[in-house]
Structure formats: structure tokens, C-alpha cells
């Protein structure tokens, strides 16, 4: 029996990792406060930043961070789920069988992604962007659900077999996204060798998930500690082991977690991760606070301009106060005072030029952080190239995050195939897909080492058309090979199809048609063998003018005309 990790060791690891990840979590908490500032700013970070307003004034907090996160999501993601492509490994022969396997794997991966996106209440593909993009890091959990997956049957009646087949068409994976706070991958190995997750869950849910629990409370939220390595798996609720055997064998034999860093941060010189996990909010926090402050200052100035404070003076202060109390502000208001009462507006300070300058600075910084608001200036007369360039510029600040998320999902799918390659023997796994289709994968369909490409933003029809036109140009200029062209356009390597296309092109090619025409011409009017002496032909003016000879069509031309007639009907290769 292998040496198992003990509860004490897990606790020690958790404590060590809390120290490692603690500063990063503290920074993430502030990022989170910024994101939810508009919804609950009073209890959060913004009051720390936005200060110095009159006592009875309530600052307004526009949802800048929240909108920045939405902008990030909509910029890097199109639709509900990413696109998956599985090409054959480089150098592998593109035989019919290999192409069939590749298609089976790709269809299965597409169905997997579709189920993961649609079956859970929170779309994990969107959620991971919120976590890694917004806060700086997130975790993906894609565990195989052995309870959902029916056990293989032996010697059963037809009815049971039908039931089994029906049950098999499920999605036996639990796919979710883990918040970075409490998610502790092994910080000393890349990729991590184990994961510790600390979170809270409802007591009822805990009892249902882990029936072995006896000491755990019946109500409220309970702290859960999960340990997962390739060999060991343990869950503790409070200090109580939630699994029957305490620390058990990892049922999947693989790590079903995946770490997704934002790609925006960097390690400190002593390998501390505090700045490694930083999302799009971290460096914009001060700028956001400045904008909030500026908006509120402008709001106050506007109010003061609209409802200018008045100064009442009289010889007697009581008389001034009475006049002030009697004042009704508004259109048609009439105020009667004695000649001793003087009413003046409060002097207002002019807005210094520096204020305008800082406003420009704030906008500039936001553009640096979130990209130019270039699309707002798009003109209908812009060329497709300009628009494509603008879209690409808008994406630039978010690209590392998008790439990291795509790589993480590709790793998850790689693990899914690895697991199935070990787990499936004679069985097959079928997943429901769009429009009631069922995607089935057999063990034999899995090609090891296939690259998996996940794309959060597959090109739109317009972009595809643009790319196709550009690639066709490159192909004509011999800057890319026909193979590369086909790869880019997603054209399958189908030899039969290729041959048909080549034949279609050759059938009416000048060289072939010309040869046919010449053969026919020679059959109709055989050419005399050249004798070496060419008789002199009298010059004939244009249109036969100046000559009594009529225009004559040469036998060759007659033949060519006949041949052209022939090509009015399509030729077949049969």
C-alpha cells in the first residue's frame, strides 16, 4: 500500500500555502470590492478612496470596474462556449481511418464543451473569465462523476440493457470554476503536483455529498478542506474526514483541477505569487477612484451652479435669518424683504486648468489599461482591413488572459481524453449534442498526442471571408503552401475530393481544351506536312478592303469552332 498523506500533513501544507497566497488574496479582495462597488460601495473599498465630500452628500459610484470586466468578456468571447479543433498531430499520415478518428475526437470534444456550458447554472467558460480576468486567477474542476456513469453490465435482459444504454447518454463530469480565494495549487511545481482547496458549503449539502459525516453541524456553513494529488484524495469538513477511508485513492488517477492564471502578472524576485495573480482591475483601481471622485466633484459643482447658495445680510442678524427662512426657491417665487436685507450669491471658485488636465490624464490611463475606445469612432466608409485592425487593437490588452483560459480548457480536454483512454476498454461514451445529436467515442478513436485548440472567439462569417480572401492572396503569391491554406480554411484532407476538384479544373484547362481542339481540327482538315518553302501571301487590308478575295476561315479555325461547340455540354470523366 502506498504511503498516504496524513491529515496533519495536509493541514501543514494548507497553512504554508495560505501564507504564500495570502497577500494575493488580500489584493484580490480589493479588486472584488471595486467590481461590486456600484452595488455595495458603502461597505467596500471605494469609501476609502473617495473622500472629502460634504457631510450630507452621497457620492455616486458608476460601475466602471464591473463594466470593464464585461468589456473584457465580450471582447474575448463570442457565444456561449468556445470552439474546439483537434487536428492530427504533425507528421501523422492523413489516412481515411486517422481522419475518421480525428473527427470522432473533435465531435466528442465539441459535445463535451457544449454540455459543460449548458448543463450547469453558471457557465464555467464565462465564469473562469470573471475569475482570472477580474481577479487574476481561477481554478477549473472537471471531475468524472463515477456515480452518474452506469457500471458495465454482464448477462442482462433487454430491458435492463436499454435502461443502461439510456443512462450512458449523460454527461458524467462535474465541471465548475473555483474562486481564487481558497484555491491553492502546489506553488513549487509547474504544473502543480497537488491541489488544496478551502471553501465553505451548506451543512445540508455537505451531509448529502458526504454521507459518512457524523460530527458535522446540521445547519449553517461548514468549512471544507480538499486535498487532491494524482494518487491521494481527501475531504475534511471541519476536522472530520468526509470520505469513508479518510485519505483515499484518487479515483481518476489524474488531477482533475486546472490552474488558470491571468497572464497579466509576474512573479516577485523571490518567487512570491502576490503579483502573479492580477486581473484587469488591479492596476486600474486608482484611476477608477480618481474618475469616481471627479464625477462626484462635477456633480457637486453642477448642483451648486443650479442651486447657488445665497448670503443674506441685514443690520440685524435675526432679520437676515427671517428673510432667509421666508425664501422659497424656484420659478415664480416671490420674496418680500425690507430694504435693509441684502441678498448675494456665494462666491464660487473657478475650476483651475489642472482639473481639465487631470481629467485628460484619467481618460488616457483608462485607455492604456483597457485599450483605445477605437470602435466608437468606426466609420461606415472604413475598409474591412481598418475594422479588422481596430478589433485587433481593442483585443490587445486582453489577449494574454484569453490565451491562458484557452490553454487551460485545452489541458482539461487533454485530461478528459487521457482519462477515457485509460478508463474505456470495449465500452464507448456518448454525449448529447445540439439538435438531439449523440456524439460517441470509442477507446480506439483516441489518438494520443493530438493537439487540442480551444478558441474563445472563433472568427465570425465576415472575419472568415476576410481571412479566406487574404489567405487566397498569400497562396497565389506562393507565400503559403496549399496545405497551409487548407489547414487555415479548415478544409479536410480528402484525397478523393481533391482528385475530383483537380479533374474539374483540368477538364476545361486551356492546355487540355487546346489539345482536343487541335486533334479535331486535324481530323476534319488534316494539316499538310510543311515543305520548307512558304509561299508568299499577298497582303490583305483590313476587312478585305482592296482585295477581291473573300474572308476565309482557316480549316484550323473551323475545327476550333467545332471543338468549342463540343464544350458547350459538360464533359464527364466516366
Amino acid at each position, binding site marked *: 500500500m502506498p504511503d498516504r498523506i496524513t491529515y496533519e500533513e495536509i493541514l501543514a501544507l494548507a497553512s504554508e500555502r495560505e501564507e504564500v497566497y495570502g497577500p494575493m488574496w488580500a489584493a484580490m479582495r480589493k479588486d472584488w470590492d471595486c467590481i461590486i462597488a456600484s452595488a455595495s460601495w458603502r461597505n467596500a473599498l471605494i469609501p476609502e478612496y473617495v473622500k472629502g465630500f460634504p457631510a450630507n452628500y452621497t457620492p455616486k459610484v458608476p460601475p466602471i470596474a464591473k463594466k470593464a470586466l464585461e468589456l473584457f468578456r465580450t471582447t474575448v468571447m463570442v457565444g456561449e462556449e468556445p470552439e474546439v479543433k483537434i487536428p492530427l498531430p504533425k507528421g501523422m499520415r492523413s489516412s481515411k481511418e486517422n481522419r475518421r478518428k480525428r473527427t470522432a475526437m473533435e465531435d466528442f470534444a465539441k459535445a463535451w464543451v457544449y454540455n459543460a456550458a449548458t448543463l450547469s447554472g453558471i457557465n464555467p467558460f464565462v465564469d473562469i473569465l470573471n475569475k482570472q480576468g477580474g481577479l487574476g486567477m481561477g481554478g477549473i474542476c472537471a471531475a468524472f462523476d463515477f456515480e452518474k456513469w452506469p457500471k458495465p453490465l454482464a448477462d442482462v435482459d433487454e430491458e435492463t440493457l436499454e435502461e443502461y444504454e439510456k443512462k450512458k447518454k449523460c454527461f458524467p463530469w462535474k465541471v465548475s470554476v473555483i474562486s481564487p480565494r481558497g484555491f491553492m495549487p502546489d506553488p513549487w511545481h509547474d504544473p502543480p503536483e497537488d491541489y488544496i482547496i478551502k471553501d465553505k458549503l451548506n451543512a445540508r449539502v455537505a451531509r448529502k455529498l458526504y454521507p459518512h459525516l457524523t460530527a458535522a453541524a446540521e445547519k449553517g456553513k461548514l468549512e471544507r478542506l480538499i486535498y487532491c494529488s494524482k494518487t491521494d484524495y481527501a475531504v475534511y469538513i471541519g476536522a472530520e474526514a468526509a470520505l469513508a477511508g479518510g485519505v483515499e485513492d484518487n479515483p481518476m488517477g489524474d488531477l482533475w483541477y486546472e490552474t488558470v492564471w491571468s497572464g497579466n502578472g509576474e512573479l516577485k524576485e523571490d518567487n512570491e505569487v502576490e503579483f502573479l495573480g492580477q486581473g484587469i482591475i488591479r492596476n486600474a483601481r486608482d484611476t477608477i477612484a480618481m474618475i469616481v471622485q471627479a464625477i462626484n466633484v462635477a456633480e457637486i459643482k453642477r448642483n451648486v451652479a443650479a442651486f447657488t447658495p445665497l448670503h443674506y445680510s441685514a443690520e440685524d442678524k435675526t432679520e437676515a435669518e427671517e428673510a432667509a427662512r421666508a425664501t422659497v426657491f424656484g420659478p415664480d417665487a416671490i420674496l418680500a424683504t425690507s430694504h435693509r436685507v441684502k441678498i448675494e450669491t456665494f462666491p464660487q471658485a473657478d475650476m483651475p486648468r489642472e482639473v481639465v488636465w487631470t481629467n485628460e490624464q484619467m481618460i488616457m490611463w483608462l485607455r492604456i489599461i483597457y485599450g483605445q475606445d477605437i470602435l466608437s469612432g468606426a466609420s461606415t466608409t472604413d475598409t474591412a482591413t481598418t475594422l479588422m485592425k481596430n478589433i485587433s487593437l481593442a483585443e490587445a490588452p486582453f489577449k494574454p488572459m484569453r490565451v491562458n483560459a484557452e490553454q487551460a480548457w485545452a489541458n482539461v480536454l487533454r485530461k478528459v481524453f487521457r482519462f477515457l483512454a485509460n478508463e474505456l476498454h470495449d465500452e464507448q461514451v456518448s454525449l448529447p449534442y445540439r439538435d438531439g445529436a449523440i456524439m460517441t467515442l470509442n477507446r480506439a478513436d483516441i489518438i494520443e498526442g493530438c493537439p487540442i485548440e480551444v478558441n474563445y472567439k472563433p472568427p465570425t462569417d465576415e472575419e*472568415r471571408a476576410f481571412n*479566406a480572401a487574404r489567405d487566397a492572396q498569400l*497562396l497565389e503569391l506562393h507565400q503559403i503552401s496549399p496545405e497551409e491554406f487548407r489547414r487555415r480554411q479548415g478544409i479536410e484532407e480528402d484525397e478523393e475530393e481533391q482528385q475530383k*476538384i483537380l479533374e474539374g*479544373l483540368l477538364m476545361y484547362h486551356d492546355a487540355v481544351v487546346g489539345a482536343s481542339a487541335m486533334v479535331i481540327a486535324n*481530323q*476534319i482538315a488534316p494539316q499538310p506536312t510543311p515543305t520548307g518553302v512558304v509561299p508568299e501571301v499577298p497582303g490583305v487590308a483590313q476587312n478585305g478592303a482592296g482585295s477581291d478575295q473573300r474572308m476565309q476561315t482557316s480549316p484550323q479555325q473551323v475545327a476550333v469552332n467545332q471543338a468549342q461547340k463540343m464544350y458547350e455540354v459538360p464533359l464527364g470523366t466516366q
Partner: protein
Amino acid sequence: MSLYTQAIENVKAAHLKAIQSFMEKNFPEIMLDQDAIKAEFERYFNDSTENAELLEQELITRYGMEEMQKQWARKGKGARRKRNG
């Protein structure tokens, strides 16, 4: 035999067949010599395609583009069907 060579052979055979039926229909009085026609066709074809590599490259380039156009025509139809419900 490469795809290209096979395609050329098939196309030559199709053309020879077409020439024969054209001649039989329109000039029944002319006696045809199959072998001579074949040899002649080969000669004219080889004369006009001295640089076989260039022809192959040209075909492949055109193939790439035509395949792309076909794909887009297919996608366009799909999109139209979707839009029309």
C-alpha cells in the same frame, strides 16, 4: 501515381472519349484511328504544357481558391436556411 497524375489521366481519357463521340456524330464519314488520335492528343497536350510543374502549381493554387469558394457557398446556404427558419 500522384493525385495530379491520376487526375490528368482521367481527364485525358474523358476528352478522348468526347472527341470520338463528337466525330462520330458530326463527321461519320471520317474513319477514326484511336491510337493516332491518342498519340496526337498527347503530343498537343505535352507541347502546350512544357512546364508540367507550373501547371501543377497553377492547378493546386486554383484548387485552393475554388475549394474555398465552394466551402463559402455551402456555408452561405446553411446560413440562409437558418435565417429562413
